[in-house]
C-alpha cells in the first residue's frame, strides 16, 4: 500500500526518467549533435519536472546539476560555475534586502497613506491598492509586497462588514488588486522579480549584451504604468463590490494604525539604506555589477543591526536561489550544445507558414508562447526555459534580441489565470483568502488587454527608444 502511494506521488519523476531514457535511445535528429541530443533529453525532462513538481523545485535544480555531469555535458567545476554568477548574487541580495524591509512595520503606514489619498470610495481604494502594490513591487519584489499588503487588504475587508461572507465580491476585488498589481509590476526594474535576473544573465552569458538597471526601467516601466488603470478598472467592473463606500473600514484602520506612533530612527534607516541601494543600482552597478551592489546594501543592513543573520537565514527562500541557478545553468548548456538553436529553428519553420518570420509578428508569437506556458509553470521557470529559445529565435530571424528578451520577461508576468505562476498570487491563494475561480473571472480579460498593450509598446515605444 505505502509503496503504491509512493509510486503515485512520484509518478511524474519516473515518467520523466523514462522519457529521458527513450530520448537517449532514439536516433539523433538532423541538425543536432549527439551531445546536443543528450542535452535535449535533459531539457525535456527538467521541463516536465518544473511543470509537475514531483520533487521540490530546488531538488529539480540539483537533478539538473547531477545530470549534466553524469551525461558528460559539463565538468563538475563548469556546472558549479554556471550555478553561481553575479545574477545569482543579485537574486540573493534582493531577497535579503526584502527581508530587511518586511521586518519593519512599514505596512501599516503604507496602508494609512493609501487611504489618506484615495478617500473612502471603493473604486478609488482599489485603484490605490493596485498603484501602490505596483510601484513598490517594481523595486522590492512582488512576493515581499504581497506579504506586506495582504494584511492591509484583509483588515479593510474585515472592518467593512461584520460577516465577511456577505462581502465576497469586495474581498476578491481587494485581494486581487494587490496580487495583480504586485504581479505585473515585478518586471518594472531588475530588482522587481527574480526572473529578471535570469534574463539579464542570459543576455550577458549567451549574447554578451549588457542591460543596465536604468535601460531596463526605461524599457519596461511604461508597461507597468499603463497596466495600473486597466487592472483597477477591470477588477472593479468584474467583481462589482457590494459596498461602495469604505468609510467604516477606513476609520477602523486609522484607529488600528494610530497605535504605532511615529516613525522610529530604525524605520528611517531601513528606508534610507534601501534608497541608497537603488541609487547605486542606477549609477555604479554598470561597473561593479548588480549583484555586488545588492550585497553592499545587505552588508549595510547587517552593520546597522537592522537585520540579524537569523532573520536572513529563516526568511530568505534559499531554495529559490538554487532553482534559478539551475535554470541559468540549463540555459547555458542549451546554448553550448546547440539545443537552443535547434529548437529555435524548428519554431521558426513551424510559424513560417503563418506568415511570421521576424519583427512584430514574431514578437507576438513569442509573447503568446510565454503567456501560455506561464499559466502552468512559475514565471521564473518560464523565463528560465524559454529565455534561451526566444533569444535565439530573435537572433536567427534578425529581430532585436533585447526586444525579444523583454517580451519574454514581461509576458511571463501576465499569469492572471492561475495562482501557480506568480509568487504574489500564490501568497493570496495559499493563505486561503481567494479561490481558483476568482482568478479566472477577471484574468481572461486582463490577459487580452495586456497582450494588446505589450504589442503596442513593443511596436511603438521600443522602436522609438532604440532609434534614438
Amino acid at each position, binding site marked *: 500500500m505505502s509503496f503504491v502511494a509512493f509510486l503515485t506521488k512520484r509518478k511524474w519523476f519516473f515518467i520523466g526518467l523514462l522519457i529521458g531514457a527513450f530520448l537517449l535511445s532514439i536516433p539523433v535528429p538532423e541538425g543536432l549533435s549527439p551531445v546536443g541530443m543528450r542535452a535535449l533529453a535533459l531539457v525535456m525532462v527538467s521541463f516536465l519536472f518544473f511543470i509537475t*513538481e514531483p520533487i*521540490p*523545485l*530546488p531538488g529539480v535544480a540539483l537533478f539538473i546539476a547531477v545530470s549534466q555531469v553524469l551525461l558528460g555535458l559539463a565538468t563538475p567545476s563548469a556546472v558549479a560555475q554556471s550555478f553561481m554568477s553575479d545574477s545569482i548574487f543579485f537574486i540573493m541580495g534582493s531577497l535579503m534586502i526584502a527581508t530587511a524591509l*518586511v521586518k519593519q*512595520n512599514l*505596512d*501599516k503606514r503604507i496602508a494609512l497613506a493609501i487611504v489618506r489619498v484615495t478617500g473612502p470610495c471603493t473604486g478609488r481604494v482599489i485603484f490605490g491598492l493596485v498603484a501602490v502594490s505596483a510601484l513598490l513591487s517594481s523595486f522590492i519584489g512582488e*512576493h*515581499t509586497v*504581497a*506579504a*506586506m499588503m*495582504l*494584511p492591509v487588504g*484583509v*483588515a479593510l475587508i*474585515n472592518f467593512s462588514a461584520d460577516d465577511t*461572507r456577505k462581502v465576497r465580491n469586495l474581498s476578491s476585488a481587494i485581494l486581487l488588486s494587490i496580487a495583480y498589481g504586485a504581479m505585473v509590476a515585478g518586471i518594472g526594474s531588475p530588482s522587481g522579480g527574480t526572473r529578471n535576473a535570469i534574463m539579464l544573465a542570459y543576455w550577458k552569458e549567451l549574447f554578451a549584451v549588457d542591460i543596465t538597471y536604468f535601460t531596463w526601467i526605461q524599457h519596461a516601466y511604461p508597461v507597468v504604468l499603463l497596466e495600473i488603470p486597466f487592472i483597477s478598472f477591470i477588477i472593479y467592473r468584474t467583481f462589482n463590490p457590494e459596498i461602495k463606500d469604505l468609510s467604516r473600514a477606513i476609520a477602523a484602520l486609522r484607529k*488600528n494604525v494610530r497605535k504605532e506612533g511615529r516613525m522610529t530612527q530604525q524605520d528611517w534607516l531601513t528606508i534610507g539604506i534601501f534608497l541608497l541601494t537603488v541609487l547605486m543600482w542606477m549609477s555604479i552597478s554598470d561597473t561593479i555589477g548588480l549583484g555586488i551592489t545588492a550585497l553592499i546594501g545587505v552588508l549595510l543592513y547587517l552593520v546597522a543591526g537592522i537585520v540579524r543573520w537569523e532573520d536572513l537565514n529563516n*526568511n*530568505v*527562500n534559499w*531554495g*529559490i536561489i538554487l*532553482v534559478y541557478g539551475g535554470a541559468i545553468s540549463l540555459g547555458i548548456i542549451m546554448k553550448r550544445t546547440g539545443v537552443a538553436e535547434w529548437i529555435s529553428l524548428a519554431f521558426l519553420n513551424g510559424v513560417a507558414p503563418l506568415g511570421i518570420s521576424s519583427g512584430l509578428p514574431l514578437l507576438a508569437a513569442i509573447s503568446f508562447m510565454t503567456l501560455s506556458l506561464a499559466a502552468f509553470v*512559475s514565471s521564473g521557470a518560464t523565463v528560465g526555459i524559454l529565455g534561451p529559445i526566444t533569444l535565439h529565435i530573435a537572433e536567427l530571424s534578425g529581430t532585436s534580441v533585447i526586444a525579444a528578451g523583454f517580451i519574454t520577461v514581461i509576458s511571463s508576468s501576465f499569469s492572471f489565470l492561475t495562482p501557480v505562476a506568480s*509568487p504574489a498570487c*500564490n*501568497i493570496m*491563494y*495559499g*493563505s*486561503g*483568502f481567494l479561490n481558483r475561480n476568482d482568478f479566472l473571472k477577471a484574468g481572461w480579460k486582463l490577459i487580452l488587454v495586456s497582450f494588446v498593450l505589450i504589442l503596442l509598446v513593443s511596436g511603438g515605444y521600443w522602436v522609438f527608444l532604440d532609434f534614438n
Partner: protein
Amino acid sequence: MKFLMCTDGESYAEDAIRFGGKLAKEMNADVSILHVRPPVSASSRIQLTTARKKLDQWDLELPGVEYLIRAKEILSEIGLTRPIAEKKEEEKISHVFRSGIQGATELHLIGQHGELVRLRMREGHPVDEVLEEADLGDYDLIIVGSRGHQGISKYFVGSTALRIADLAPCGVLIAKNIREDDNFLLCTDGSRLSEKAEIVGAEMAQALGAKMTVLAVAETEENREEASKLARRADMILSQMGVALQHKVRVGRPSEEIIDEAHDHDIVVMGASGSSAAKKFFLGSTPLKVIEYGVCPVLVIREKRGKIALEVTN
C-alpha cells in the same frame, strides 16, 4: 462515542456542526472539528510564512482559524462547551493552537459534561485529510455538511462529501437541508449491518427525543410479506430497547422508495449495505443514491474498521 465534524466555513457546514453539537451533547460524545486548508507547495512555504507573520502582527486570523473559531462559538451557543473564561477571551486563539498533534494543529477545549472538544487544522486535499484524520483519531462518526439549499443544487451533494461517505472507515452523517425537528427514518434490509444501523439510529433518536419510523422496502410485490417480516423484527428488537416506533413497508426500487419516504422525515439512517466481506468497506449503490439525490441528512453506518463486529442476536 467520538465525532469528527468538518467545516469549510460555509453556512451549511455550520448547520451541520450545530446539529452534530446537539447530538454530541445528548450522547456525551467527544468532538473534533476539522478544517482542511489548501496544500502549499514547498517552494512557496517561506513566502507564505512571511505573509502569515504579517497577518499576526495585525491581529488578523487566517481563514481556516476563523472557521474553527466560528465553530467553537456555535458549540458554546448550543451549550456543549463552557463559555471560555473572561481572561482567556482576550488572548488570541491562534496563540493557543499547538502544532504537530497527529499531523494537525490543534486547540483543546473541555465540554460542559467533561467531553473533550478539539479544534483541528490540517493541510492538504480535503478528502485525503479527512480520511487520514478519521483513521488516526479512531472516530465513530464523521459529520460532513453539504450544500443543498436552493434551486437545482438542492438535489446534489458535493463530491467531497460523497467520497468521504464512500471511503470512510466509520459511520458518516451527510448533513444537508437540516431541519429543526428530528424525525428518524430507519431503513432495514435484514442484513446484520442494517440491524446495527437501526440500533445506532435508535440510540441517537432516543438521545434527541425524536420520533422514529422503520422502513423496509420490497423489490417486488411477491416479497412484500418478507419485507414486512423484516420491519416487524426490527420493531421487536427496538422495542426491547424501550423505544416506541412505527413501521412501514413500501414496494419498488429501494433507493427511490427511500428517497420518496424521506420527504416526510428529517434523517435517514441506513447500513452501508453489502453483505459480502469484499463489499463491506465500500458503499453499496443504494446508500450512495440516497445521499446524492435525497433531500435530507443521511446517516450511513458501517462496521468500524479493525473493530470486532457487533453481533446482534435475536
